[in-house]
């Protein structure tokens, strides 16, 4: 059987670089079941033996507070990897060992890869590796992640040697017992005994570790203990609350039925020691435990493990860079420049590959157009499938470029500084400093795209802030909304073009931030996640890690989003196509065409003026075209989308939208720029290219149904209503639930409609 190795350690410890060096292309990224935490697996072979390797999410501790920590902990306890390679940043030994201690307390086969030895050396830190290994009782191997190959080769050799000898492996299972002071130690011994007597989780964790978790009031362990106790004592969960203390209405039930003897015995000890600590020293068990862990580490390191060659307070290069990049005045200016550059490069440099893909699909479309007979199948393939798949793949270069630049910003450490500088502003709205990136990409500077913006929320580690960001980024003005705005501005506000565009940008930011505030004080209520964040030293990102990072995220998008999006695009096509025209209507249009042909033939034969034949042909063609357009318009009105549009006209009139606008907005769910082309069909102008919407603008400005106020209402609605379905699919994936995607569709549309109605009605009253 292949041995499984888990890579674990702090964020920024070079874990992922080491993982990439070990596995190269032999890796795949997925999610842990049910959560959005990335699971990275890979394989490597050494001396003909192959190994499975799992890159666990980077954590500082193993509490039950963050999803990453729970995932890492459960993996280690349930999957029981053959070896845990704990990647430790040598230049930051003290804090990194805090996690190592917790692995050792769990009794795992730990093995320390002392990474970034080069950085430590540069900082004038030398480490006595043998002594460290002896004192900790686990093997320690120095590695240099930057020089991935070398470090990895050495590591692999040691891993395979260790796994080869069973006797050695027994020795690796070193279980340390740290003393936490008399009070805690006594309580631990008592709880340990209860745990062993009731064999609670003894197959997963050492009893002492579980006992510690009780003292730390660990949610996951307490919940498991409740279930365990009920099982042991054959207590059925009470009917009203299912033994969930939060939702229980009768206190009596909790104490009599839910709280089992097992839990009671333990909580008695915990309460006793907690009260005692509070009275004698005004502190809490969890604080005492953390203090002693750090105390243990510093007493360990004081035994001559670390030698500092330079003055410890010497400003390191990274700190000197920070003096400029987070400077009170220069910092924000540089940040604006960097964000603008990211935006500029992403959207400009991806324009060429995007156009290649578009050309490819239009070539494919025209070749099918030429080789197939007209009919519904052809229409399905052309408008449904090719446009749908093309639409998805069209985003790929954009996503690749965006993740490429974000990976550079993230790996270099600059992204953390951006969060640091902007946190104060975003916190007002219940968001996090890191929320800025998704907002900018989605169109904070008009012209972005919500799809990569939604995916960029992955850089946010706080769950509540992340969800609020996810739900509000679609309010930004993406590139697809721009043609709609341009059309309406050209038709009604030509003189104030720049001002209106500026106001549109401001409005979308205000809408998004206020909506975020609303969400954070209602449905995603709760204390903000503490902004306890490491500012990692600046590092030059490696090409390999940036490329791998970019590719894996892009591939995930293509794979998962592609299938769903294809389906929805076919449905939308069907809605705009069926049921089509009935025979009577078809005959009517056919008759019209015949009439034109006959009358033109007549006039041609009568006059027989050859010189004018060209002109006559043109006139005939124009007449025929206008019949085609009229037919397209009637067909659209008759389609399911058209029927929906007409049937809700009674309601949408409050916002000033007639059935034509309604269909266009339904079409806009496919992609916002479709609003323009659908309006074109609805005003029987045939297919309107979004770039050449001048005729449509003229038509709109002359239409009695359209006033400047209607245009304003439509601009607001387009800005805020349901995100396009590609965004909705991504939103469902990134939030981990279709519930939020659906919420986004319903809420945004409701919000947009309310806003439009208020503006339209108020405007009408004021006589606009």
């Amino acid at each position, binding site marked *: 059987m292949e041995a499984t190795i888990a890579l674990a350690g702090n964020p920024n410890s070079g874990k992922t670089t080491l993982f990439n060096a070990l596995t190269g292309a032999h890796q795949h990224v997925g999610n842990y079941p049910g959560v959005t935490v990335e699971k990275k697996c890979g394989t490597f072979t050494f001396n003909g033996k192959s190994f499975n390797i799992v890159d666990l999410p980077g954590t500082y*501790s193993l509490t039950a507070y963050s999803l990453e920590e729970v995932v890492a902990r459960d993996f280690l306890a349930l999957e029981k990897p053959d070896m845990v390679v704990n990647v430790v940043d040598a230049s930051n030994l003290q804090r990194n060992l805090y996690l190592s201690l917790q692995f050792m307390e769990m009794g795992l086969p730990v093995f320390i890869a002392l990474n970034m030895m080069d950085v430590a050396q540069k900082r004038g830190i030398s480490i006595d590796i043998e002594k460290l290994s002896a004192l900790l009782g686990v093997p320690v191997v120095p590695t240099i992640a930057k020089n991935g190959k070398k470090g990895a080769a050495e590591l692999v050799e040691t891993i395979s040697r260790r796994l080869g000898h069973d006797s050695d492996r027994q020795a690796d299972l070193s279980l340390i017992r740290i003393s936490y002071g008399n009070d805690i130690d006594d309580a631990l011994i008592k709880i340990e005994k209860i745990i062993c007597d009731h064999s609670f989780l003894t197959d997963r964790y050492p009893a002492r570790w579980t006992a510690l978790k009780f003292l730390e009031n660990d949610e996951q362990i307490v919940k498991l203990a409740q279930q365990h106790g009920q099982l042991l004592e054959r207590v059925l969960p009470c009917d009203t609350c299912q033994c969930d203390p939060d939702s229980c209405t009768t206190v009596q039930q909790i104490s009599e039925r839910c709280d089992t003897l097992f839990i009671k015995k333990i909580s008695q000890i915990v309460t006793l020691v907690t009260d005692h600590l509070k009275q004698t020293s005004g502190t809490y068990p*969890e604080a005492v435990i953390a203090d002693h862990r750090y105390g243990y580490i510093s007493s360990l390191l004081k035994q001559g493990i670390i030698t500092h060659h330079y003055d410890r307070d010497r400003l390191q290069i990274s700190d000197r860079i920070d003096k400029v990049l987070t400077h009170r*005045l220069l910092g924000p200016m540089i940040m604006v420049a960097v964000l603008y550059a990211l935006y500029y490069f992403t959207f400009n440099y991806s324009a060429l590959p995007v156009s290649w893909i578009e050309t490819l699909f239009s070539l494919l479309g025209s070749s099918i157009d030429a080789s197939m007979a007209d009919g519904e199948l052809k229409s399905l393939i052309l408008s449904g499938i090719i446009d749908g798949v093309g639409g998805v793949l069209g985003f790929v270069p954009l996503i690749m470029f965006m993740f490429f630049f974000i990976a550079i910003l993230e790996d270099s450490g600059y992204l953390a500084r951006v969060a*640091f500088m902007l*946190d*104060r502003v975003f916190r007002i709205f219940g968001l996090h400093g890191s929320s800025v990136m998704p907002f900018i990409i989605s169109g904070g500077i008009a012209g972005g795209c919500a799809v990569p913006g939604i995916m960029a929320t992955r850089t946010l580690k706080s769950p509540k802030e992340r969800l609020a960001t996810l739900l509000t980024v679609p309010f930004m003005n993406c590139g697809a909304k721009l043609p709609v705005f341009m059309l309406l501005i050209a038709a009604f506000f030509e003189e104030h073009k720049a001002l209106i565009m500026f106001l549109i940008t401001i409005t979308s930011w205000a809408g998004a931030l206020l909506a975020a505030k609303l969400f954070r004080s209602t449905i995603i209520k709760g204390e903000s996640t503490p902004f306890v964040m490491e500012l990692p030293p600046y590092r030059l990102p490696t090409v390999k890690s940036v490329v791998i990072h970019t590719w894996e995220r892009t591939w995930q998008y293509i794979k998962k989003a592609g299938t769903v999006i294809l389906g929805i695009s076919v449905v939308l096509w069907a809605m705009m196509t069926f049921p089509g025209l009935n025979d009577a209507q078809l005959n009517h249009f056919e008759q019209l065409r015949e009439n034109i042909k006959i009358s033109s033939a007549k006039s041609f034969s009568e006059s027989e003026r050859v010189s004018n034949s060209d002109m006559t042909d043109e006139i005939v063609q124009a007449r025929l075209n206008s019949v085609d357009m009229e037919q397209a318009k009637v067909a659209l009105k008759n389609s399911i989308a058209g029927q929906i549009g007409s049937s809700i006209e009674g309601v949408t009139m409050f916002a000033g939208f007639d059935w034509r606008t309604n269909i266009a907005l339904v079409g806009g769910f496919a992609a916002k720029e479709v609003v323009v082309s659908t309006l074109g069909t609805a005003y029987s102008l045939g297919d309107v290219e979004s770039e050449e919407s001048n005729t449509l603008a003229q038509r709109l400005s002359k239409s009695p149904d359209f006033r400047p106020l209607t245009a304003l209402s439509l601009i607001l609605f387009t800005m805020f209503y349901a995100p396009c379905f590609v965004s909705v699919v991504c939103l469902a994936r990134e939030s981990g639930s279709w519930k939020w995607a659906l919420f986004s569709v319903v809420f945004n549309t409701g919000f947009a409609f309310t806003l439009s109605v208020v503006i339209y009605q108020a405007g009408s009253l004021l006589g606009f």
Partner: protein
Amino acid sequence: MNQISLRHMKDNQKGIIRAVNATGEMGRRIRDMGIVPGSEIAIQGRAPLYDPVALRIMGFTLTLRNNEADYIMVEVEPDHAMAKIGADIAITTIKSDRNREERNSPVMVAEVK
């Protein structure tokens, strides 16, 4: 002993953590990063809007919001303004504090006394 909350420390000021009064998730996260009694820290700087604060601890840089820094009590080396003992401490502190974003000078004076 000059104990002040971390919020009121000045840029580049050094100190030793004496108490962390936060509980629950915030307390855990703060402690996990090495903010425990006895740790030496130095303020490295503040964000352009004075919040969050960046500090140096055990050789790395950590950021905290000011309302999180409130829970952390630090023993600071008496700085130049505070070295003199007597009534003028209060005046000097208020003066030097006037430029600060948070004017909790009464609290601070009480601490100094």
